[in-house]
């Protein structure tokens, strides 16, 4: 067995990391296509208020982070469809400001800034058995839920009006989806960190969009890139003694750059093929 797996905290880290590496990009596909990619950033700041409240009250911080993030997600959804229809980013900014304001006050009131810091940037060595028992089942429920109702979420992301006509309960889907986003963001704070979670929502999906040719392909590659990023990031962070959250994100960035290179090579080879084809036709005409 590799040395890395002989540590129980790393075993827990890999288990939790893989669940997050699969579920976050899966949710991210729908979020990015709904042009709501910044929601992760907003909810992680709000969830931080929940963490700070948990530390202040001496309650398990992740559970309070989930509750606060879910309330904020429902608030964003309501603002997006009522008060600020057509200005989705305004509703995000309002909730972000409220959450961050509250978090700042609660952090200043609690005397454990180190614990808050671990939720801001993620800390693999602090993943507890309690985290495992909460994150793995909830992550699996969210992942399976999205995959079962895949076509419903797809229709809503493509065109809400037409989705409603084809029998998709759009309002319910939007609220359930936002709740799932909130849960996933709050769960991921433990390992990726609140400040970095939005990167895992965006980067694997951005890389996937470069190579996929269908929606199913986009979902598949996003999840694949998410898992590769998490596992590579955890390995590198362990052996090189780096921050796991940052290493995971930089691995995602590297994967994105690789897809750019892959696409560039593909484009150049297509152009070469086209030029060769034209030359061949020219030569045939010349000889004929």
């Amino acid at each position, binding site marked *: 067995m590799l040395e890395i797996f002989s540590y129980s905290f790393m075993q827990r880290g890999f288990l939790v990391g893989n669940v997050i590496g699969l579920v976050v990009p899966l949710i991210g596909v729908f979020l990015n296509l709904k042009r709501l990619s910044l929601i992760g950033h907003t909810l992680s700041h709000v969830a931080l208020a929940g963490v700070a409240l948990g530390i202040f009250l001496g309650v398990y911080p992740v559970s309070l982070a989930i509750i606060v993030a879910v309330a904020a997600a429902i608030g964003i959804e309501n603002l997006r469809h009522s008060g600020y229809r057509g200005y989705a980013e305004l509703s995000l900014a309002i909730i972000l400001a409220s959450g961050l304001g509250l978090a700042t006050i609660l952090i200043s009131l609690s005397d454990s800034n180190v614990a808050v810091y671990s939720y801001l940037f993620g800390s693999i060595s602090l993943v507890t058995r309690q985290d495992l028992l909460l994150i793995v089942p909830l992550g699996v429920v969210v992942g399976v839920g999205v995959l079962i109702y895949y*076509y419903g979420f797809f229709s809503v992301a*493509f065109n809400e009006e037409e989705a409603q006509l*084809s029998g998709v309960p759009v309002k319910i889907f939007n609220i359930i989806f936002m709740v799932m986003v909130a849960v996933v963001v709050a769960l991921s704070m433990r390992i990726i960190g609140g400040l970095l979670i939005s990167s895992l929502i965006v980067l694997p999906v951005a890389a996937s969009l470069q190579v996929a040719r269908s929606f199913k392909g986009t979902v598949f590659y996003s999840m694949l890139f998410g898992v590769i990023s998490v596992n590579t990031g955890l390995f590198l962070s362990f052996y090189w003694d780096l921050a796991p959250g940052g290493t995971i994100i930089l691995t995602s960035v590297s994967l994105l750059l690789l897809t750019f290179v892959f696409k560039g090579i593909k484009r150049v080879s297509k152009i070469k093929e086209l030029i060769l084809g034209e030359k061949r036709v020219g030569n045939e005409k010349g000889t004929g």
Partner: protein
Amino acid sequence: MNEIIEIKEMSFAYEEKWVLKEVNLAVKEGEFLAFIGPNGSGKSTLFKLILGFLKPQKGHIRIWGKPAEKLSARGRVGYISQNVRDFNHSFPATVGEIVGSNLYQEMGFFKLMTPALTKRVNRALKLVEMLDFKDKPIGKLSGGQQQRVFIARTLVTEPDLILLDEPLVGVDQEAQNDFYRVINQLHRELGITIIMISHDLHVISSQVNRIVCFRGGKIFPHCSSEFDYNDYIRQARKEDKLLIPSHQHEE
């Protein structure tokens, strides 16, 4: 022929301004109708009322004898909205995925695409001559081809009534001819009732059974197709300024 839509003394207002006033209209099974009129005259609003997205303040709209807002058989009505082609053209979906997703209601609890449903997707794409494009990304198609994919998306639910809201805006002449050929085929061979909103009276009058004109919140269910369209628009705009301000709502 049976009546599919029955609209009686129906009025609808956005906030405090009447958009449609005391409208009466009956649409029979198998008809191909055109709604024409200037912007803001209530054509798209009437579509949304028929679809049950909006509720009239006065009178009633019945579809197959039931109030439109309680229409349970959503699959029987196909609708292509005015802004359907304004979708994100980078949306990473294939033609097959776009058409298939409209079968959501028929996918069962686990929402799976069964072989029977895949056959329906293929049949719908074949009807609009787009089967060869099934695996192509939707964003890579031309405007006319996209329009046909959206017709297939509507057809896949096997509707008895199709509502088309200005489907030919921004589509070139060749694609328009193709569109009318496909639509006429659906109307003749499958007997689907079609209502289409258009601004091009000269073209649409040669394609449809009946034209319904909209002006100043009123509708004229049997417009002559030979009257001077430009004069009609000029007159309608004058009257609409008095009755319905153009900025009041967007069609």
